[in-house]
């Protein structure tokens, strides 16, 4: 299954000081001098979300890929949150009033609405579930819907 990648808007910072600062001079007979070492690392992360998926007719459960934190370099105490916005109704292309109800669930049959991730590799497998009753009541035709995954950088819970 194809994946979609969402990369954080910020890349790792390139902190090269463009400010001219005076150097420290140490003369005979010697001495010591403190120097500050620093670097600024901006948070970065990559999340993959499920790509377009086709549900077979009468399929009660269809693999819908996974939401995965592929890579992460984030501040301590922060997390990457992924939220799902889905209408729950596949709409007939010829008549939008004709629908088939569906739910997007995790592997343990819990409805997926959002999840937070902190470590690269954290993942949530998803599936599209449609009841037999919904299939039996469906009119002929092509049905589709669009779901939206929203990724944000938040305080860890």
């Amino acid at each position, binding site marked *: 299954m194809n994946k979609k990648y969402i990369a954080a808007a910020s890349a790792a*910072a*390139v902190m090269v000081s463009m400010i001219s600062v005076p*150097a420290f001079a140490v*003369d005979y007979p010697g001495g010591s001098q403190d120097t500050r*070492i*620093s670097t*600024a690392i901006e948070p*970065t992360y990559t999340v993959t979300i499920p790509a377009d998926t086709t549900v077979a007719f009468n399929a009660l459960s269809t693999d819908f890929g996974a939401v995965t934190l592929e890579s992460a370099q*984030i*501040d301590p105490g922060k997390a990457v949150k992924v939220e799902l916005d889905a209408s729950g109704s596949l709409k007939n292309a010829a008549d939008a009033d004709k629908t088939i109800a569906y739910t997007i669930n995790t592997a343990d049959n819990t409805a997926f609405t959002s999840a937070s991730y902190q470590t690269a590799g954290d993942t949530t497998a998803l599936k599209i579930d449609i009841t037999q009753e919904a299939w039996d009541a469906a009119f002929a035709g092509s049905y589709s819907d669009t779901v939206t995954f929203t990724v944000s950088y938040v305080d860890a819970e």
Partner: protein
Amino acid sequence: MKRIASVLLAGIILSAVPVTASAEGQDTRVKFEVDPSYTVIIPPEIILDPQSDGTYAKDAAITASDVRLKYGQGITVALESDYTLTSDEGAELAYSVIPANNVSGDAVAQFKTDTADQTAVIKFQAGVPEFSGNYKDTVTFVISVS
């Protein structure tokens, strides 16, 4: 005849004045003092840059000028540090320092007597950080003559 002779003899005697001269060698001490001197320039701040492999690093130049020391002496530059960068949130990132070429012992740089400027390049090298953030540390450059 006798009177003329007497006058002439006196003139000759008067002209023979004795001069005192040294008959032995004499030592003279020649000396001068050259004060040792040098100036070593170290950077006040070193900001690590991201590398292509995800690590962070930076080269730092240390310059010595007008170095004039006693024969056999040299300037040694050493570092005092815990070699750990710490972020504002407390995350830690270890780093190391690669000394300049041709140094011995614990020195990161060494210089010899030379009126021309001498530059030693040392490298600060950190690993791939687990967490983002603003990291900082303070190192102390210790300059001595040995």
